[in-house]
């Protein structure tokens, strides 16, 4: 007799659909094949000229129709593509989803190409005055929609027939995980039987790259792009900006089994803690990350000994990887030396608003396939970081539970605990 409630009396939340897009390709099959063969999606930037740029590589998704159309159209297409795969897998009606939508998306902005085109369609006035005047003469709404924060979610809600006011959220690099957490919470509160949680990011414009570059956050190891993202290595020098999307169909276990759905995994727990130390740097003692991990374990009703694998935030910045190691060592104690901890970002780069969702998808697949993807480019280990990073090659292993970390700019930390089975 299946128990449908967790240790705190809340409905157990199952995953019945998974979708993913990254620079490695569209869909779980292509992504998983690449990920487990240690293939990198990082490549030289071709979307725009790289003159004057210190970083000339990325994990952009260049093979979609919208790839050259700007951040809003691309983010929409990424979200729609991953969600389509997830909903199709779930067997639910793809135009009448019947549950709420939670979308993690990058902040939107008027694209520079539109700015130039609006500006140069006229000669009078200058600067903002001209833009405003041209704007009020526009007949079409398509440019306007790219500047409204709610528009991508609104289109997705139309596309999939989700219920109610869709939530578009941002917690920086933790956004994808937060989208999943919001879906879990809505189901646990009994507001719905199912939720569609998507993390998508197609915002790798020149300005986005430059913004991160000015904060010294990005790797400048341009010469061999696929080697640049090297989490936990001695010579790591920053993250590689990337794009992608991850989508999960979340359902109460009870509802999933009642309709005969295949359960792909369980969302056991979510934990969060905000950091008050600095806008981009984490508190050096790792206390917020430690608290987030412990909160996730407690929420999952699991002890620290019951985690088989950690899907790290592992951005390849000097700081994150050090802080993450400290935090994991503190929580897991001596056991950390024998726990596999790998970073998908070594291959797909940092997919920003999508990362938490993409990595949750890969965590679930890790458990289903009994294969742990490697941390690639682990050629010069950082002697201060003693971790089993599953170096360079995949590993076959039974994995019953995963801790997935996402630590965001602005100090928003979210950890998810996923399991293969309900109990």
């Amino acid at each position: 007799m299946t128990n449908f409630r967790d240790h705190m009396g809340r409905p157990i939340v199952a995953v019945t659909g998974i979708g993913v897009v990254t620079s490695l390709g569209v869909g779980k099959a292509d992504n998983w094949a690449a990920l487990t063969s240690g293939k990198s999606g990082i490549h030289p930037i071709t979307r725009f000229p790289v003159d004057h740029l210190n970083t000339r590589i990325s994990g952009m998704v260049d093979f979609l129709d919208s790839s050259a159309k700007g951040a809003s159209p691309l983010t929409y297409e990424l979200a729609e593509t991953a969600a389509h795969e997830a909903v199709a897998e779930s067997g639910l009606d793809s135009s009448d989803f019947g549950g709420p939508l939670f979308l993690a998306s990058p902040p939107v902005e008027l694209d520079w190409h539109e700015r130039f085109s609006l500006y140069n369609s006229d000669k009078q006035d200058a600067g903002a005055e001209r833009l405003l005047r041209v704007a009020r003469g526009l007949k079409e709404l398509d440019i306007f929609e790219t500047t409204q924060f709610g528009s991508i979610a609104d289109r997705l809600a139309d596309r999939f027939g989700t219920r109610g006011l869709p939530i578009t959220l941002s917690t920086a690099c933790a956004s994808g995980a937060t989208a999943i957490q919001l879906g879990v919470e809505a189901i646990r509160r009994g507001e719905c039987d199912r939720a569609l949680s998507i993390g998508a990011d197609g915002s790798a414009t020149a300005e986005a790259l430059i913004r991160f570059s000015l904060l010294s956050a990005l790797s400048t190891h341009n010469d061999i792009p696929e080697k640049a993202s090297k989490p936990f290595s001695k010579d790591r020098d920053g993250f590689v900006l990337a794009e992608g999307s991850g989508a999960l169909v979340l359902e109460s276990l009870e509802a999933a089994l009642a309709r005969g759905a295949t359960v792909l995994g369980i969302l056991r727990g979510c934990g969060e803690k905000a950091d008050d130390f600095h806008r981009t740097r984490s508190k050096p003692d790792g206390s917020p990350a430690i608290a987030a991990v412990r909160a996730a374990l407690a929420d999952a009703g699991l002890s620290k000994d019951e985690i088989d694998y950690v899907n790290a935030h592992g951005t390849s910045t000097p700081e994150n990887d050090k802080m993450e190691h400290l935090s994991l060592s503190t929580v897991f104690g001596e056991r950390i030396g024998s726990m596999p901890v790998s970073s998908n970002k070594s291959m797909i780069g940092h997919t920003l608003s999508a990362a938490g969702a993409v990595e949750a998808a890969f965590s679930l697949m890790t458990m289903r396939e009994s294969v742990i993807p490697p941390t690639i480019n682990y050629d010069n280990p950082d002697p201060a970081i003693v971790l089993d990073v599953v170096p360079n090659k995949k590993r076959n292993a039974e994995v019953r539970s995963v801790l997935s970390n996402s630590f965001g700019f602005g100090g928003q930390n979210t950890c998810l605990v996923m399991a293969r089975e309900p109990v």
Partner: protein
Amino acid sequence: MSSPRDVVITGIGLVSSLGEGPDAHWQKLAQPGLQPVLEAARFAPYTVHPLPEIDWNLQIAKRGDQRQMETWQRLGTYAAGLALDDAGIKGNDELCATMDMVVAAGGGERDEAVDAAILAASESRNDRDVLLNEKLTTELRPTLFLAQLSNLLAGNISIVHKVTGSSRTFMGEEGAGVSAVETAAARIRSGQSTHVLVGGAFQTEHSDMLLGYELAGYLHRGPWKPVWQRQGAEGGGVVSGSGGAFLVLEQREHAESRGRKIYAELGPVVSGRARRSRGELDAEIAGLLSQAALPNGKLLALSGASGAHAATSAEKTALDADGTIAARGFSTLTGHMKEAQFPFAVALAALAVDRKAAYPVFDAAAEKPFEGIPASVLATAIGYHQFEGMALVKSA
């Protein structure tokens, strides 16, 4: 019948062209015939409700912190501080460390001078992508990005006010404010949170913020009029305003155990997404009114109507059709404050419940007087473009 997990409002932080704080707002808005504070020259042909002079030091003690922000984040951080002060939570480490937060945010201010220079140069360059790289790599202040990032308002509230429980940022104009309040309330009712800081800010005095409306022609032009009277006027009806509104929501039991004054109870919060191009807005508004569990008898409503012609007209028709509702379109006096709009509506509703008095009409030609004590007050935000929400605020 009250329950320990009822959601109550124990702190209010408000900033607008009318001033700062719940008391200042009540005193102004309680005066019949109050005139709005308007700025018609700086952004002509658009009128805005500008921010008053604010002493940021009062809520953001460190200059270093102030310098990391532009006006939008300062405004939100300031209003959040006011709410925390008002609730007696500011400076209480234990309460701040366990306080959850949901912020409704747009984006921060771009550097207008850099943008104008790039645009001017683009007139004579056809290698515009290279032009962008040249200018942006050299002219942008590196930390400006952090002042622009949507989730950094919440980040700054954590850093400055030490609120470090869970932190969520919702984006999506008025709908983000609705979802923020709705989610915060749901967390409290379910026992997941004991106390939550929720709200948003909007800083309109920047060309990109106006562009965000005007790319669809939403801004009102010509002489200023009250929010219900802009149909048929030049432009799209919206007069925007700078402002911020933050609420401290708490479990009743938690508030009572720390002996805090309760302004009001937050009753049902309802939200929706009308497919307006299919003509669904009227039905959506009617549906929300019925879901909001309105009490019998006359009802005061604090409407976040934006002035946008179609949305505002649909709302007015629906509110008037229900013969018992006396609406107050507060944007007449504050301007439309986007992400802050719904929290502001809830705050003003809570004040009326707390003070046991309705606001006088903000527009004598279009609003009905309300006599007596408003035991329940409706708050609404019908998005100028998309998304809708309402909440019923009741005496505690």
